[in-house]
């Protein structure tokens, strides 16, 4: 394998991993940035996305409906949870949210286990992206290229939503001063429900897109939640751009670190987090420095 081929495939590996990490982290950071809620159920919602994706893909015989319906279903679960439970707690302190989202994680985790069983389930990549392409003579799965493209599309979409639309303006305003926004005649509760729903459905997208790589399994939730928090902490709590940069940083460190120093594979992500926290205690783009 030539150096060029090596660098190309490894960089694309890192980019595809970054895309998956980004889907995982961005919903969590969005919810935190706007609602000040640390959503412990995020990993479980990610897992739910993978399992719903499995069922939809299996019954329709295609991946595409799964990619549409799984995030929608997870988003609906998020909105219902916000309406029924979170809404009653906004006057409480932050620890109440920790407890209640942790509770949601436990309950949803058991529901998934009872519904789909304890065994890992296969989700095949979409037919159109099941093959390989040769990059500098090395085979590379097209599905990973698709992940990179999906990552870019979703990042741009969120950025456009937050920065260029009226809804985005209201969301940003509500995060800074909910009383003022409310006084201007905007239903802040509705904004919160929407944000929580969007954040959850982003976790759902992440789950269904990761499933062809890691299968849908009940172990997913626990494995993902730590990564999600590391991304949010490195990027800065609540920073959309921060989570994007953090996902890229982690993925590149992980992919090249595993290659050159495989014995430290487990440590890279945490070392990176440590380094960032020492230099910028609020995270790369966090506000509280």
């Amino acid at each position: 394998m030539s150096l060029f081929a090596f660098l190309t495939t490894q960089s694309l590996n890192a980019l595809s991993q970054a895309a998956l990490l980004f889907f995982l982290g961005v919903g969590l950071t969005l919810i935190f940035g706007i609602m000040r809620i640390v959503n412990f159920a995020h990993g479980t919602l990610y897992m739910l996305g993978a399992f719903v994706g499995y069922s939809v893909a299996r019954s329709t015989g295609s991946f595409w409906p799964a990619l549409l319906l799984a995030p929608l279903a997870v988003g609906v679960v998020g909105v219902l949870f916000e309406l029924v439970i979170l809404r009653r707690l906004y006057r409480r302190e932050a620890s109440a949210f920790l407890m209640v989202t942790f509770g949601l994680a436990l309950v949803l985790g058991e529901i998934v286990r009872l519904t789909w069983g304890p065994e890992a389930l296969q989700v095949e990549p979409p037919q159109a992206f099941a093959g390989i392409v040769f990059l500098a003579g090395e085979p590379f799965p097209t599905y990973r290229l698709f992940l990179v493209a999906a990552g870019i599309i979703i990042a741009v979409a969120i950025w456009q939503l937050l920065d260029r639309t009226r809804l985005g303006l209201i969301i940003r305003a509500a995060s800074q001063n909910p009383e003022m926004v409310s006084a201007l005649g905007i239903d802040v509760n509705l904004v919160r429900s929407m944000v929580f729903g969007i954040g959850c459905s982003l976790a759902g997208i992440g789950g269904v897109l990761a499933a062809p790589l890691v299968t849908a399994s009940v172990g997913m939730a626990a494995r993902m939640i730590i990564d999600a928090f590391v991304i949010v902490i490195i990027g800065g709590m609540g920073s959309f751009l921060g989570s994007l940069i953090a996902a890229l940083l982690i993925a590149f460190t992980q992919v090249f670190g595993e290659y050159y120093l495989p014995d430290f594979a487990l440590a890279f992500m945490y070392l990176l987090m440590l380094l960032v926290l020492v230099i910028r205690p609020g995270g790369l783009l966090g506000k509280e420095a």
Partner: protein
Amino acid sequence: MTKFRGITRRTVTRSAIAGIALAAAPRWPRPAVAADVIKIGMPLALTGPLGSVGQQLKRGGELWAKTQNASGGLIGRQIQLLIEDTGGNPADAVRKAQEMVERDGCNIFTGITLSSEALAVVPKLEEWKAIFISSDNGDGRLTAESFVPNFFRSNISAPMGARAVSLFLRESEWQNVYAIGMDYAWGRNSVQVFESEMKRANKNFIGSVFSPIGTKDFSTYITKIRQSGAEAVYITMAGDDYNAFLAQAAQYRLPEKVQLLSEVVDLTVPRAVGDAALGLISSMRYCFRLDNPKNKEFVALWQKEYDTVPDNNEGEQWQALKMLAAGIEKAGSTETGSLRSALETTAIDDIKGHVGMRKCDHQAVQNGYMVKLAKGEGFSYPVPQIIATYPGEKTTPACNKMTFED
């Protein structure tokens, strides 16, 4: 303190001292155990990356207990399984097992799932006066340097699995081999044994790499295997990690270039990754396809109960409990000392044919099996076909050893 006027500093001190004295007492008085129930402790990793293995052990244990109880129990007593989840965490495994000893008066354990958990539990067995019969732990040290007299291993160990793969490789044309393992006790031990096997077989062992438990992206490891120039790669993985590795390896078309061989494979793996497992060659500790009457009976019983065929660890758990039952019947009691003496010379003819416990290091001697995953009639996923069987004398290391001489 006005509210609690009755409590003085002295009474507090006194009760604290009493508490400490109680806690420090050598052993809590054991709760009275109903003499007619045999309690078997199963602190299992039901969740976590190896949760699928723990779930198999649970099913294997439950069907055995149900069957045994329906036929009148064991030495006239009913069996009760104590099942708890450890999450695959060694500290939790020790804690849950200790609770079973102290709270339930349990003195028999099986099904402890990860080798790292088993290695944490065995040093406590003497203090607990408890027997632990492994149905699943691979790490060779358990019957070598970490061996304790109250430990028995009914299952095929990692060195025995690695040995079967290497006997198979000796007869193959593949010269250059590489290895990848999960980065914990079992993976490291298995790869170490395999490496020494390959060197003695005059194969070119190129190198090895270990992935942390819970790795999700295997692209770099796949690149490493591809770059190594190996014709065959030896894999020691299980659970979610193995599924992710195989799914991704197939996406990179790795099996077209490199033959994948593994120390052990469960049916949960081809069920989770489908065709990505096609062509995989592996040693298997138990395979439902074994051709003998006892096994056919077992498979039929299993299908009736669970509507599927028994998996690798399900068969191993069944065998371990059959071995235990034979030992208890021989001893005529579950008292730790007499059960230990009886188990040392117990042999059974069951689902894997003749399996005999070895007195010197408490390892059960049994055949080794190699399988290849291929499409099978009546199955929606690739199923194992037995392609080689090696006698126990060839696959079991010498007493208290985990490497081989020839």
